[in-house]
């Protein structure tokens, strides 16, 4: 009886919707669709998960029912909820003999499990069995699972079978086997290295799909090792030629292009093979020229191929003719209205200027345009281009722009990138030291916590060493200007920790050097730093060391140091700090204050940060002490390498790791157990404390660079003064390796480069370039004013401006948007009448080669209804024009959505469309189901037409332009 009921329900749904799922599932999806908030959605799903957990565990769930449960689990997981309790059931389902269930099982496990999941081991056996199946669909399903689930450990279990499948009679199987092998290669190159020749063989497969798939692994292999594949250049060129000449079956055509995806892959491969190889490149010139000639620029895919060709041309050995073609294509991209193409154009330009910087010249304006564009993506790409074309002549403008942009973004990832680029450029091309320091200050101030520590060390090094000039005066001027700027900056709240470290160090070293500021003032400032809210231990350590240095310099000069009360309290605080490093620094300062001036001078010489300090790695000064201890009966030191046993923890660990890594899953029978190694037992001997008493030389070497405080503890016994000395060199070592190339700065300043670049055409100093930039910017408004004038003369009113505003915000009042849009759309078409003519003649994107006169009137109901949901109906002429100016559709829809009452914005649209979809789509009962249809004659009409078209049997597959209309125009 119960069964009959469910059948009845299912039948009802069948006639109603026809999605083939149970009522429960439909209800679930519907209620999710109607959920008004994420919290509500979560509640519904949690309830669903609970009920599934209960039901799935019941004994004897019918298989069909189980299949649905699994699909519902996939749904829950997709929405971000944990469905791990059901994984095992999905795994079980893969064991099923019936293909539909097996397929669902495989789908679920590929979605649920990651490659390191414990359950994978339970699937390997099934996969092995299925790979041997007679039914190629079963094999395909298994191979898809292989690609997702087989990890390094389980590769050997399926590898022989996958290799066998490379010669399977069905091309679908061969193709998937190639992809599976490719995946194995990505996971563990060593496991398939002996099988590489198979890829070469598959390249000659007579099915283009298999050949195309083979290009993926070959691309990776060539990336890793170009030289072993040079012999394939001619084959690749040959294939590309054939593809371009349309020798492949028609089914591989895509929007009138011959197998464009295969072309792109081949072009990528050729770019690798031809890079820096004149001979190989020579083979490619002809076919590349053909592609440039044949490529259709009106379609997106044509441009994709064109872009790839530009990349290829800029990568291989240069050829003048091809470069010309590439430059021409690039300029078309840059001049295009589409942001996408502009983006690609900027990228392509960045590639071409590496070969010929002159190309950028004619695109200055376009590049400036992109830089000013409200689109962040485009802006970032343009910054990337600018970064590539920076020279000493334009560095100030470019870095200035970059910093300005950097200040206003919140995306930490990109901020880090652009900050490090600023630093790199500044280090490479800085015109003056002053500018460099100012720039670095800005970078640190706004992105301090995101910059690499190395950068801070380089800055300190630069201030200490100058730019390598021997001019003492310039150096001290540089330092005092740095000190001035830092004292000023210290007044600002919330400075990044790294920047504070730099400031403290510089103030400590050079704060009092020029006698401009009294020591008490600097010390007071440093004390303020430590009192700041967010001051961390490292900054405190830097600050106290800086105070120590200033005191030392004062004492060495013979002046009396007055201890400021806040400084004294700082010392007191730090000497009881939890950090031993801080404690030590505080005690050192106290000890130093008691020393006489001569001793202090030798401990802390003035401006000695650049001097090299020799480190005695053998610790010869400890010899006497060691000798004495041995005489007193201490155990002599045994070097680490000669030690055996437990005390060597690291060794023990590495051995363990070694065992773990060599441990592999075995898929054959067990061997006889090996006798356990005998040396394990002595390892558990008594640990010796020697290592603690006498540090191993290696350890000392490491600590000298990393931790300043470790050294004194080593040498602590010998003398306090020595301890301080060692401590000092720890501070210096913090700079890290000498990475800064100090010579490049000034040398490049002197060379005036005549070459032009994209932003500005400059050959002088920064101020001039800035003028030029302003000039070129001034030209900008003129151009847009011209555009506006044209629009105004054609349509009246200042259409251009309103349109821009409306589209960018999307929340503008409906009427405004519409009014602004129509002229805007028309305007964008009108200047280029040729383009307008071209657009309708280009077959529509979904028009798959079977033109149908009714195609324009069939409007997808879903889309229509979206228009109807809004209070204002779409004006019909606009709707017809969608075909040529597709980009305005989103706005209409956006407006429709925003105009909805806020409470029902999501639920209303979905539920109403759900209902309407049922009726319109399946029963063609339009008049009753759409209540708001009276608003205009047009939607009704089109719906009726649509319904009629469906009744007549016109397949909507090919002629349904509106839903998937290319919205990009």
């Amino acid at each position: 009886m119960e069964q009959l009921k469910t059948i009845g329900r299912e039948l009802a749904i069948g006639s109603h919707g026809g999605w083939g799922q149970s009522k429960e599932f439909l209800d679930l999806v519907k209620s999710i669709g109607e959920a008004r908030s994420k919290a509500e959605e979560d509640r519904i799903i949690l309830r669903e998960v609970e009920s599934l957990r209960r039901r799935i565990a019941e004994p004897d769930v019918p298989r069909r029912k189980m299949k649905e449960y699994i699909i519902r689990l996939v749904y829950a997981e997709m929405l971000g909820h944990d469905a791990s309790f059901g994984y095992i059931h999905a795994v079980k389902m893969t064991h099923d003999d019936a293909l539909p269930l097996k397929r669902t099982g495989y789908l679920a496990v590929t979605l649920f499990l990651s490659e390191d999941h414990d359950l994978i081991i339970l699937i390997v056996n099934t996969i092995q069995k299925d790979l041997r199946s007679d039914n190629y669909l079963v094999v395909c399903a298994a191979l898809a699972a292989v690609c997702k689930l087989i990890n390094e450990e389980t590769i050997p279990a399926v590898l022989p079978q996958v290799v066998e499948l490379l010669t399977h009679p069905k091309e679908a199987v061969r193709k998937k086997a190639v992809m599976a092998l490719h995946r194995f290669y990505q996971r563990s190159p060593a496991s398939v290295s002996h099988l590489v020749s198979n890829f070469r063989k598959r390249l000659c497969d007579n099915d283009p799909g298999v050949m195309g798939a083979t290009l993926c692994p070959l691309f990776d292999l060539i990336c890793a090792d170009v030289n072993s594949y040079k012999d394939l250049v001619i084959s690749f060129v040959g294939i590309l030629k054939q593809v371009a000449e349309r020798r492949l079956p028609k089914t591989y055509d895509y929007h009138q292009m011959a197998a464009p995806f295969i072309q792109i892959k081949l072009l990528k491969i050729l770019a690798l093979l031809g890079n820096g190889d004149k001979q190989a490149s020579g083979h490619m010139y002809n076919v590349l020229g053909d592609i440039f000639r044949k490529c259709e620029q009106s379609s997106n895919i044509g441009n994709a191929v064109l872009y790839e060709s530009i990349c290829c041309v800029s990568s291989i050995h240069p050829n003048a003719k091809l470069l010309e073609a590439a430059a021409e294509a690039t300029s078309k991209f840059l001049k295009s209205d589409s942001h996408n193409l502009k983006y690609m154009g900027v990228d392509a330009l960045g590639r071409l200027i590496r070969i010929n910087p002159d190309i950028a010249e004619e695109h200055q304006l376009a590049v400036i345009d992109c830089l000013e564009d409200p689109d962040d993506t485009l802006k970032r790409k343009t910054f990337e281009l600018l970064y590539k074309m920076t020279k000493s002549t334009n560095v100030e403008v470019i870095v200035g722009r970059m910093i300005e942009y950097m200040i206003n973004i919140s995306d930490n990832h990109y901020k880090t990138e652009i900050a490090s680029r600023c630093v790199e450029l500044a280090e490479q091309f800085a015109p003056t030291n002053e500018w460099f320091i100012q720039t670095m200050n800005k970078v640190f101030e706004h992105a301090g916590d995101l910059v690499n520590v190395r950068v801070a060390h380089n800055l300190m090094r630069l201030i200490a060493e100058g730019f390598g000039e021997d001019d003492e005066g310039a150096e001290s001027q540089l330092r005092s200007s740095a000190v001035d700027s830092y004292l000023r900056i210290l007044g600002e709240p919330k400075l990044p920790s790294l920047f504070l470290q730099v400031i403290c160090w510089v103030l400590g070293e050079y704060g009092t050097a020029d006698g401009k500021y009294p020591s008490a003032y600097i010390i007071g400032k440093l004390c303020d730093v430590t009192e700041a809210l967010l001051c961390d231990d490292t900054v405190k350590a830097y600050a106290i060391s800086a105070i120590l240095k200033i005191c030392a310099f004062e004492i060495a000069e013979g002046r009396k140091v007055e201890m400021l009360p806040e400084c004294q309290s700082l010392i007191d605080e730090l000497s009881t700090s939890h950090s031993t490093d801080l404690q030590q620094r505080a005690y050192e300062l106290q000890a130093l204050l008691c020393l006489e001036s001569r001793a202090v001078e030798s401990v802390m010489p003035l401006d000695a940060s650049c001097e090299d300090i020799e480190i005695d790695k053998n610790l010869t000064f400890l010899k006497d002490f060691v000798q004495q201890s041995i005489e007193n009966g201490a155990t002599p030191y045994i070097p680490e390498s000669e030690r055996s046993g437990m005390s060597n923890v690291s060794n023990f660990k590495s051995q363990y790791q070694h065992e773990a890594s060599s441990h592999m899953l075995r898929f054959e029978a067990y061997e006889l157990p090996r006798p356990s190694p005998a040396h394990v037992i002595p390892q558990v001997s008594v640990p010796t404390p020697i290592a603690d008493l006498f540090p191993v030389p290696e350890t000392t070497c490491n600590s000298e660079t990393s931790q300043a405080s470790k050294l004194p503890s080593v040498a602590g016994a010998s003398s306090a003064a020595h301890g301080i000395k060692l401590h000092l060199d720890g501070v210096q070592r913090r700079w890290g390796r000498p990475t800064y190339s100090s010579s490049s700065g000034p040398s490049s300043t002197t060379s005036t480069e005549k070459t032009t670049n994209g932003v500005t055409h400059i050959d002088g100093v920064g101020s001039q370039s800035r003028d030029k930039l302003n000039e070129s910017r001034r030209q900008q408004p003129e151009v847009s004013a011209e555009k506006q004038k044209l629009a105004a003369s054609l349509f009246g009113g200042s259409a251009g401006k309103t349109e821009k505003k409306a589209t960018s915000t999307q929340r503008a009042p409906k009427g405004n948007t519409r009014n602004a849009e129509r002229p805007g759309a028309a305007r964008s078409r009108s200047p280029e009448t040729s383009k307008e003519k071209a657009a309708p003649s280009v077959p529509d994107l979904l028009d798959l080669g079977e033109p149908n006169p009714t195609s324009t009137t069939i409007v997808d109901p879903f889309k229509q209804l979206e228009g109807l949901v809004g209070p204002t109906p779409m004006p019909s002429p606009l709707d017809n024009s969608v075909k040529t100016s597709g980009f305005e559709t989103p706005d209409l829809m956006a407006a429709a959505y925003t105009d909805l009452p806020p409470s029902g914005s999501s639920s209303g649209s979905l539920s109403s469309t759900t209902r309407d979809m049922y009726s319109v789509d399946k029963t063609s009962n339009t008049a009753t189901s759409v209540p708001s249809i009276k608003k205009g004659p047009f939607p009704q009409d089109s719906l009726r037409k649509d319904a009629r078209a469906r009744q007549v049997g016109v397949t909507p597959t090919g002629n349904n332009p509106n839903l998937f209309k290319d919205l990009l125009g």
Partner: protein
Amino acid sequence: MIHFVLLISRQGKVRLTKWYSPYSQKERTKVIRELSGLILARGPKLCNFVEWRGYKVVYRRYASLYFCMCIDADDNELEILEIIHHFVEILDRYFGSVCELDLIFNFHKAYYILDEILIAGELQESSKKTVARLIAAQDSLVEAAKEQASSVSNMIAQVTK
């Protein structure tokens, strides 16, 4: 390489997700939240690409649905845009004028189709016909299996077809 495929609605609801690189469930939620905030806020005339965490996300809007694919920084964005369209065209052909509801209620079928187009983050088949043929072969087997089952479910299968 494609790292993941996301389908999100204009309201930020997830319609389909496919991950080709390892992401934990927690990361996935974060990624979806981050990206839907980023992409849904973008205006209609802007680029269809977003730079994100050193990767690029290519998205394309169809009616109220956003198709997003995350790729490496050096991949060809326009190509990915067309791969998305390729996928959509196949969906359209399979469902017969596809709409969001088809994908909502039949998301597992959308997964099957996606699996025939992309595998391990690479485009495996660029011929629409081949994909359609394979899917049809699989479906016919499903149908055959259904018919073998009891007569009642056979009836249901026919009605729901």
